[in-house]
């Protein structure tokens, strides 16, 4: 019993000693030594668990802030501003600082969804099936609407029966291949993105 009392008293004393409030009341700075405790001593930054870190660029506006992305087992665990960048010098705005919340948002969709004509609900479909179906529909729409010459004989080799919208959120390489395939390959001219608006 006495041993137990001693144990409790010991824990109590240790707690009082560890608790920062008495130390602050005694005059220690809450910004330095009095902020320390056993708990704080044992805290570790989560980026220490990362098995990979890479440089990214913020996906929102066109300022082009650099980010450091920390990942573990292929999943992001932490994102912060890259202090080396002369654009943002380690800072991020509220949107950029929320990038991890975008990557990990429960509202992200990870499956291909399909809505049949006149259907009232979505259904899941395999990626491969959807890719083949879209390729077939693209070919069919192109073949039905392709114009080689105008009535006066001018060569146009184009279709306005298929359009594409979007690009300002994509990479340069992606935009390049979209323009190359749709315009240079299929003859689509109605290709636009957010830069217009």
């Amino acid at each position, binding site marked *: 019993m006495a041993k137990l009392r001693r144990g409790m008293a010991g824990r109590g004393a240790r707690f009082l000693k560890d608790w920062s409030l008495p130390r602050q009341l005694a005059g220690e700075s809450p910004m330095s030594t009095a902020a320390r405790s056993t708990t704080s001593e044992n805290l570790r930054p989560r980026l220490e668990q990362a098995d990979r870190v890479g440089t990214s660029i913020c996906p929102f506006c*066109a300022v082009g802030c650099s980010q450091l992305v920390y990942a573990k087992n292929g999943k992001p665990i932490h994102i912060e501003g890259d202090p080396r960048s002369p*654009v943002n010098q380690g800072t991020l705005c509220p949107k950029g600082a929320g990038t991890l919340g975008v990557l990990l948002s429960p509202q992200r969709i990870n499956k291909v969804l399909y809505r049949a004509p006149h259907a009232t609900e979505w259904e899941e479909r395999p990626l491969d099936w959807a890719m083949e179906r879209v390729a077939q529909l693209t070919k069919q729409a192109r073949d039905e609407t392709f114009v080689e010459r105008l009535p006066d004989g001018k060569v146009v080799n184009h279709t306005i029966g298929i359009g594409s919208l979007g690009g300002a959120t994509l990479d340069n390489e992606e935009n390049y291949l979209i323009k190359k395939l749709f315009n240079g390959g299929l003859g689509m001219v109605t290709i636009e993105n957010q*830069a217009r608006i």
Partner: protein
Amino acid sequence: MALWDLANSDWVITMGSNMAENHPIAFRFLVEAKRRGATLVHVDPRYTRTGANCDIHAPIRSGSDIAFLGGMIHYILEGDHWFRDFALAYTNIAHIIEDAYADPEQGDGVFSGFDPQQGDYSEESWQYKGKIVPSPIAEHRVQGEQKGAQSESMAEGPPPQDPTLQHPNCVYQIMRRHYARYTPEMVEQVTGCPRETFLSICELVAQNSGRDRTGAFAYAVGWTHHTYGVQIIRAATIVQSLLGNVGRPGGGIMALRGHTSIQGSTDIPTLYNMLPTYLPQPNAFHDHATLDRYIASETPATGWWHNFPKYIVSLLKAWYGENATAANEWGYQHIPKLTGDVSQLPMTLAMSNGVVKGQFFIGQNPVVGAVNTALVEKGLARLEWMVVRDIAMTETANFWQKGNRIQRGEARPEEIGTEVFFFPAALAAEKGGTVTNTSRLVQWHDAVCEPPGSSRSDLWFIYHLGRRLKQLYAGSTAPRDRAIQALTWDYPMMGDKQEPDAEAVLQEINGYTVADRKLVPNYQALKDDGSTACGGWMYSGVFPKEGQNQARSRRPDKPGGPGSHLGWAFAWPSNRRTLYNRASADPEGRPWSERKKMIWWDEGQGKWTGLDVPDFEPEKRPDYRPDWSKNPHGMEALGGADPFIMEPDGQSMLFVPSGLKDGPLPTYYEPLESPVRNPFYRQQANPTAKIWEQPGNELHGIGDPRFPYVLTTFRLTELHCGGVMSRIAPHTAELQPEAFVELPPELARELGIEHLGWTTLSTLRGEVEMRAMVTERLTPFEINGRRVYQIGVPWVYGWEGYARGDVANVLLAITGDANTSIHTTKALTCNLRAGRRAGTRSGPDAG
């Protein structure tokens, strides 16, 4: 200019942008400039955190920017405040214009050359006397044809000039007459800005520009989203060229663009009117029938663009490889030709008119972000099929299930026959590639983590779609299918998912010599004989040799270094940070001042040198003058003191002879929807504005009493554009949970609206409801002697994500800028009342 160069400015005017809230990290450089002694100005209808951080906030009514900037030009010219040594040498201020030129002062708001039947201008009377001046801007050539074939006159001698500026038709005298009535009194009357405030800004820029001091403008879509958006920017260009704030440290006009690679998607364009890096898309109604004709008509006789043939032939080699030969015009006929404007607004109308069968939406959400979204939804319902690629459910993808028309009982899902595919997309950290920021900085991002589930990069999607299509067309013998068969489409793939290698694509954009596939070091190495291939000449140098991806370079300058950070990523062209930086030195090649030095002529080395990559031929002496007896072409026709090398005579154009559809000088017009008549001219609105009349897209008349309030739209720090990207991020959505309208207390009292109470806004296009944010950030204006209320709404909400609200763009009409067809969102009229909306979406008296 580089974003960080704004810290070197002695003044910055933010106008048409709420920079502190929408580009907060870039705004740090203004805060730094202020710390170093700069004066900051915000010109905006609303008092925001940008205004709060500036020294001066000048309120103006939405859309009145050209009156304000025209007033600045008037102040600079009449007070003789312009930087004479700079502007006389580097601008066309002394150039003499054709005798037939007539100003809007004579034409009551219309320039000479207007055809009222066609609603467009002929540029003949705007030319330099006796010359035909080509335009350097390919994207403006959809209606107006390039004058390359006729521009030989530019190689025969310099344009006529009067350095004494006395000639009545020199640009200086034309501008003085043109802006004579843009007085401080008129500025106050038109914009609502107190004249004392306006004058204090004029004094600020006049006193802090010149050899030793520079300043900058910063703008965003508050300038572009008007029928005269290009002309607003032009007006700022005139101010900056007159004051010598171009091509110099801390000087310039900073476009604050909206999306991560909106600059890249303009350069490497998923846009209808350009091929990569500003080559014009061939047009059936221009002299483009053959490659020879296309090159002849698109190649100006003088200036840098004389190199055009090298760029187009190298592009064709990149796209069609071995199938591009001299015998088949390097595959030129595979490139489809335009027959008119098929930009986003006509595309929307084409969908609603049933012209389009299939449509891809790749990371864009027009049911929130486009104007007149009820009409957009009608168009989607007429498609046979559509593909949406995004990271979460968008309003565009499920318009058939939850759209405005469904919500309001106007349509049922069973009636909509559109077949819809939703493909989940990967985000930046989940794929490798480059994006280009607003100051042309091409930056690589790494693939650090895996895209979840069936999510794939857009590179994967387009590459594998292309592979399938090539297979489907493999057996065809039809001539129309030769393009897809000829297209080079073979990039290495990586991993189980067969992700294409983005670096291989970037290398193709950079360019290579065909014989050995060796990467070209720069665009100077490109040829027009088929020996080089290049997907985007302006990006050449981003991957100058194997293993050297410059977009990945991460070596910033040390503190105290030159501050151009040439080791950080790659800025096109040539890793240059400030365009036209030859203007940072005087005509003799010396810096205008020690404080504002950037590049200079080193006589000892016989070349240009300095803190940035010189934007000039490296060994062209400042005293070089063209030998006109030899009929010089290309760069030989530009002197050693002609800094603006993309222009046909190397001079900054205060007055633009070619390339603009709505006049050679910015002129004040009212927005298409306005509460007042144009106080300057009988011509009310831009006579060349893009207007599409059709049911559901009606406009309000001048001063229509049913729609008395000026409405502007804006976005928020926490929520980004129409995308769901920020509305699905929990903490940003929580910070801005719901749609609202900002209105001044005076109007709230008049209408019986309480702060946080429900309101309904309406136009002839539709009706939306939002909570009221009653705030003194907005104040009533006195315009032309009457009180005008201005209100504003964020347009970033929809029915998906955590933060929701009515789609504000339901209220807007489809109308466009005369030059760019950009939609107009910043100045329209509307009605506002207390209470919630009814179930129907038609406006009052709309039938």
